[in-house]
């Protein structure tokens, strides 16, 4: 059932709003030890935007990303990706929903160790049973600077190179939204800069929508806007961010929450 809808939406024009969260709530555990990770978060992101999600540790950033990306089911509220609501169903149905709609870039890269760079890049297409355009994959890999490493295995590459493969993989499947979870967390400053520029290009050149969770103000400054999260709630938004402004805001965010408690 999902398969048919996903094909149809792939062919149709993308919705104006790439991502919409309405009063999303998520609680882990039960009773005394229950932790509210998300407390009624509402958020809308326009198509072709690059947004960073920031907040102190435990503010619910990662949970927000997982719920928005259909990796985890929220307890309450609505998540819409590209105008289609993420509904219930087993893991298989959620997987089919994500195909073609959602791409991932993780801190740990998550490339399959037994596949070469080129094979890793086309894997999502293979799994989804979609037509594999190898020339296009090669083109994108060349664009991220890995045109000469097509046959290498992930463990023969540096961290920065692996992350660029992950971005190429996310781009080849042409998803509506790319979710990046601390994509520069394990990289040196040079590798981080390359990766952030590529994410910017994904938005400006390829027209993707990127949502990036990060704790690094410098990384966040590459985004068009930063949304702040504290104690599972939205705590403001900063358009056209600079690293200093983000750091400043983040520091006060900590103050506010402490005063609030």
């Amino acid at each position, binding site marked *: 059932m999902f398969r048919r809808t996903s094909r149809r939406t792939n062919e149709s024009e993308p919705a104006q709003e790439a991502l919409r969260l309405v009063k999303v709530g998520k609680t882990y555990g039960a009773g005394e030890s229950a932790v509210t990770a998300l407390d009624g978060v509402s958020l809308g992101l326009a198509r072709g935007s690059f947004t960073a999600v920031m907040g102190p540790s435990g503010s619910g950033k990662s949970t927000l990303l*997982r719920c928005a990306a259909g*990796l*985890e089911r929220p307890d309450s509220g609505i998540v819409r990706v590209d105008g289609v609501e993420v509904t219930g169903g*087993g*893991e*298989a149905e959620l*997987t*089919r929903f*994500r*195909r073609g709609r959602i791409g*991932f870039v*993780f801190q*740990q890269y*998550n*490339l*399959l*160790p*037994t*596949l070469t760079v080129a*094979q890793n890049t086309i*894997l*999502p297409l*293979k*799994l*989804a*049973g979609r037509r594999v355009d190898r020339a296009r994959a090669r083109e994108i890999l060349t664009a991220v600077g890995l045109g000469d490493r097509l046959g290498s*295995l992930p463990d023969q590459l540096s961290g920065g190179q692996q992350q660029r493969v992950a971005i190429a*993989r996310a781009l080849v*499947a042409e998803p509506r939204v790319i979710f990046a979870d601390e994509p520069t967390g394990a990289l040196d400053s040079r590798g981080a800069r390359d990766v952030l520029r590529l994410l910017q290009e994904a938005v400006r050149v390829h027209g993707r929508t990127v949502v990036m969770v990060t704790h690094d103000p410098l990384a966040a400054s590459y985004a068009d806007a930063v949304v702040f999260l504290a104690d599972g709630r939205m705590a403001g938004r900063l358009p056209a961010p600079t690293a200093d402004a983000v750091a400043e805001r983040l520091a006060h965010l900590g103050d506010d929450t402490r005063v609030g408690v």
Partner: protein
Amino acid sequence: MFALALRSLRQRPGRATATLLSAFLGAAVVMTFNSLHDTAARPGVDSVSAQSLSTAAGVVGGYGTLLVFFAIASTLTVNVRQRGAEMELLRCSGATPAQIGRMVVGEAVAIALVGAVLAIGPAMLGGRALLGVFQDSGQVARSVDHSFGPVALGSGVGITVSAAAGAALLAVRRVTLRRRPRGRARTFLAYAALLVGGAAVCSTFAFSAEDAALMAPPAYGAILLSVGCALLAPRLLEGLLDRLPLAGPSGYLAVRNLRRRAAEMSGVLMPLILFTCMASATLTMQAVESDALKASGVPKSVDAKNLETLNLTVVGVIVVFCCVMLINSLYAATTYRGREFGQQRLAGATPGQVLGVVGVEGLILAVTGVFFGTLAGLAGVLAFSAVRTDSPWPGQGPGIWLAVVAVAAAVTLGTVLFTARRTLRTPAVTAVTLVA
């Protein structure tokens, strides 16, 4: 470092279970058979009883011991390889390769010792039961008492500990060397095993049809041939994998996984080939032996029947042991892949597709294992049959072989699919962040 080894054991008892189980079972089997030597050496045992006891212990106990050695070694190799990440962490914290080696080998030896000690009780009971079967069959006088002595204890502990230490050393070396060894030692070992195995099988022809130990050389030979095949099989398979017409994403991934994991594969292929080989060879040889006895008409019906029961009991223990080891290594190898499964799922694979990948891999493994196991087993059976009867082809028909193949395939596919299903219960995002 040894303190660290014990500590890491205490923190994760589950991780050591597979190793402990194989050490325990292996030691129990070895001690059970070798306690027959102790029993035979007791004062006051008549020479006929002593003779049949030491023959049984020497033949089955002998090749059983060899089998246990390889089974423990292969399980441990699978287990130690999985700790690459942990060893990397230790190296980054300033541990020298020698220190890491001491930790992993120390841990393996500690587990093997615990397994061997735990096995003493069951082995005493098992030895007594085995002696009872001998007495029932009339091979050993009723007056003989079971004895559990230095031979049983020494061989049980010695084999278990040396197999564990050897496997751990090799596995650690592979991890700490940094560069991937391109397997010159493996090739040498493989050819050596094939050569010695072939020689052992050929030496069957030096025996006469009535020799009590006639079953020993083909059985030894078959085990060594199995080991050689297990070491070479992944490389032979690589060429074949390219030509497999496997369509669909699951087949695509399975073929690529198998090609890159040649070394890991032989760890799982070893018990699979050993099982197929030992089960089909020993059971067929036993059937040939029974038929030959029947045809010669020397011992009368009741004795012949008892003798058959005795031999089948002895062979049965070995076969069941092989089967448990097979399940054990498949379980350990599949559990370890949780992170990889998580990565496949995050790349867009449904749980069904992941199970499909595992299923195709299991099928290819089963076919490979059965093929080489049959080859190795057949060498032993043909030699045995040629000497024992006049025709190299046993007149048994393929019944035993078919049953063995069915069990091997069912166990392989059943274990990997069941384990993978359990592993898939962990959410994909959690699975990829768990340190393997």
